[in-house]
């Protein structure tokens, strides 16, 4: 036990004396969560639009006021003629132009219909789509208010409700993903680098010719990172709760346990990587290419798994991150207990056991 403590002490010296690894350990999680939370977002907020109002009557004024009052849009410019539309888009000043036809009010009252043209800059298709929908729903609401007294005989009213993330906040989607990526990277990359560093510097040779048993070396290497990853997980959860108002509906205790399970499976992957790579650089490349990319692309973090082609959907099953994200979303957003995620937990547990067994088997007690 004393040996083990001595070994762990040494590992902490390594970590705290290496500025680079300290930065990766603590700088990256915070930077990533803030980046994903603030910068990379699908929501629209204060989108600049322009208005081309040919009628300038009370109705158009009311509509414009309603649009300006919503937090989604801010009216950047009022333009006067059709030809300005093209140039204002080219300058990239606005994302959309609302074009009210001539005699809007009059047409509405006389013919019972008036037209408004919504022109959007579709270089960013997601935003264009969202803008169209939002403007549409503002108009619909206005229309409903106008027709309060009139009853239409046949009417289908769709009443949609978005559950678990009613405001469609993208941060709810990113937090579980970012947490997964960070835990995976810190655990797998840092352990694989720290083990290969011993190989590279030749200290592994001395450790092998010592009474330390392989599992003692491995656990000694891995233990500090379990500890640090748990701190990271806590930091991420705290940040997302307090800065992004991310709810944690389910049990924090269960969330913690599942995170530890995922951390251990990533550490086992890290050990596995270190057994196949001879230098720190290889270990880093393998961790980044072999873990980061699949986690980002195939785990369902950014791209929904259900819309992937079948072969990729099948491949996604072997990625531990996919299951962890499902678990995280379950606990944080839906507030489910273990009875709903036992299947995913079991899969993750099975993978962890498999990785540990494989890496212990592959760990060399000699140099060849």
């Amino acid at each position, binding site marked *: 036990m004393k040996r083990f403590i*001595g070994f762990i002490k040494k590992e902490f010296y*390594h970590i705290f004396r290496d500025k680079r690894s300290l930065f990766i350990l603590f700088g990256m999680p915070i930077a990533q969560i803030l980046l994903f939370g603030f910068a990379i977002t699908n929501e629209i907020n204060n989108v600049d639009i322009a208005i081309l109002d040919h009628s300038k009557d009370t109705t158009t004024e009311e509509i414009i006021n309603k649009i300006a009052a919503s937090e989604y849009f801010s009216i950047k410019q009022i333009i006067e003629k059709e030809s300005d539309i093209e140039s204002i888009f080219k300058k990239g000043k606005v994302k959309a132009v609302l074009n009210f036809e001539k005699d809007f009010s009059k047409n509405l009252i006389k013919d019972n219909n008036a037209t408004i043209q919504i022109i959007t800059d579709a270089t960013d298709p997601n935003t264009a789509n969202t803008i169209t929908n939002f403007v549409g729903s503002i108009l619909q609401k206005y229309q409903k208010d106008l027709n309060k007294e009139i009853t239409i005989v046949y009417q289908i009213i769709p009443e949609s409700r978005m559950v678990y993330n009613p405001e469609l906040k993208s941060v709810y989607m990113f937090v579980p993903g970012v947490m997964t990526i960070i835990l995976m990277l810190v655990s797998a990359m840092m352990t694989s680098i720290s083990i290969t560093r011993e190989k590279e510097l030749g200290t592994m*040779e*001395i450790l092998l*010719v010592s009474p330390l048993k392989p599992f003692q070396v491995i656990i000694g290497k891995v233990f500090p990172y379990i500890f640090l990853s748990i701190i990271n997980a806590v930091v991420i959860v705290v940040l997302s709760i307090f800065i992004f108002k991310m709810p944690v509906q389910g049990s924090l205790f269960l969330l913690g346990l599942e995170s530890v399970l995922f951390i251990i499976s990533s550490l086992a992957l890290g050990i596995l990587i270190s057994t196949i790579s001879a230098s720190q650089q290889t270990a880093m490349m393998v961790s980044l290419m072999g873990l980061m990319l699949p986690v980002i692309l195939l785990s369902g973090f950014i791209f929904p798994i259900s819309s992937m082609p079948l072969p990729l959907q099948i491949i996604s099953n072997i990625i531990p991150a996919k299951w962890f994200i499902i678990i995280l979303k379950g606990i944080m957003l839906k507030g489910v207990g273990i009875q709903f995620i036992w299947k995913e937990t079991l899969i993750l547990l099975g993978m962890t056991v498999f990785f540990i067994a494989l890496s212990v088997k592959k760990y060399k007690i*000699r*140099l060849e």
Partner: protein
Amino acid sequence: MGISVNHISKSYKNVKALQDISFEVKKGELFGLIGPDGAGKTTLFRILTTLLFADEGNATVAGYDVVVEYKSIRNSVGYMPGKFSLYQDLTIEENLEFFATIFGTTIEENYDLIKDIYVQIEPFKDRRAGKLSGGMKQKLALCCALIHKPKVLFLDEPTTGVDPVSRKEFWEMLKRLQEKGITILVSTPYMDEAALCDRIALIQDGKILEIDTPEAIVEHFPKQIYNVSANNMYQLILSLNDYEHNHSVYPFGEFVHYTDSRTDFNPEELKTFLETKDLSNIHIDKTVATIEDTFMELAK
């Protein structure tokens, strides 16, 4: 109960690193493996420290078989690899403490064993190992290899890259450790260090050329060696190589070590020959063979 090596062979792909190596090191002996780079010294060390498997043959260290009882060996030997292998980001004291702990001991417990060496680096004990000079690194590495009171000590080229003064100190330390009953196997490419061992094995291209005490090895040199000097060293070597009766010509400091192939060699004859080659100030004197001469002769 020291080290016993029986018919060890080892190959890497196409290279035969070790071929049928056998020797014994007695308990408490200071045994030197002398040979140039690439002779197979490190491979042999790694086999004996249980880091590599031999292709053929077997070996025991402190009475334990290197394959079957590797765990017992790892408990009872000290190993100092050729490459500096301590933690560069840990201080002297932290390194030493770490190695003491993983061997289940403390610095205090075996302090007298390392005392002579440690006092020299103790003033710098808070300095990181990566910032030490070559000699200090070696002393620290030796301390770390000794801290658990090993029965057998393996030192792979401990003095390579170390200045002459530190080298001398290092060997004095080894002598003192030997007095404490530790069996020491040391390898070195420096022939002058060979004379400081109890017995040496000359090794080249994975084969042992000779094993004996340094004195006996020198005595067994079959020829009379002459120190030859002249005004122009380069011209001298060329001319001696041209001489039809030469047996060996090796530059050796300010002299050329020369042996003749005939038994009735007359130095005057050689002198006359050299004078015809425009050399002047020629001296030819008898000298005694060194281990280097023996090595060159055997490696021929």
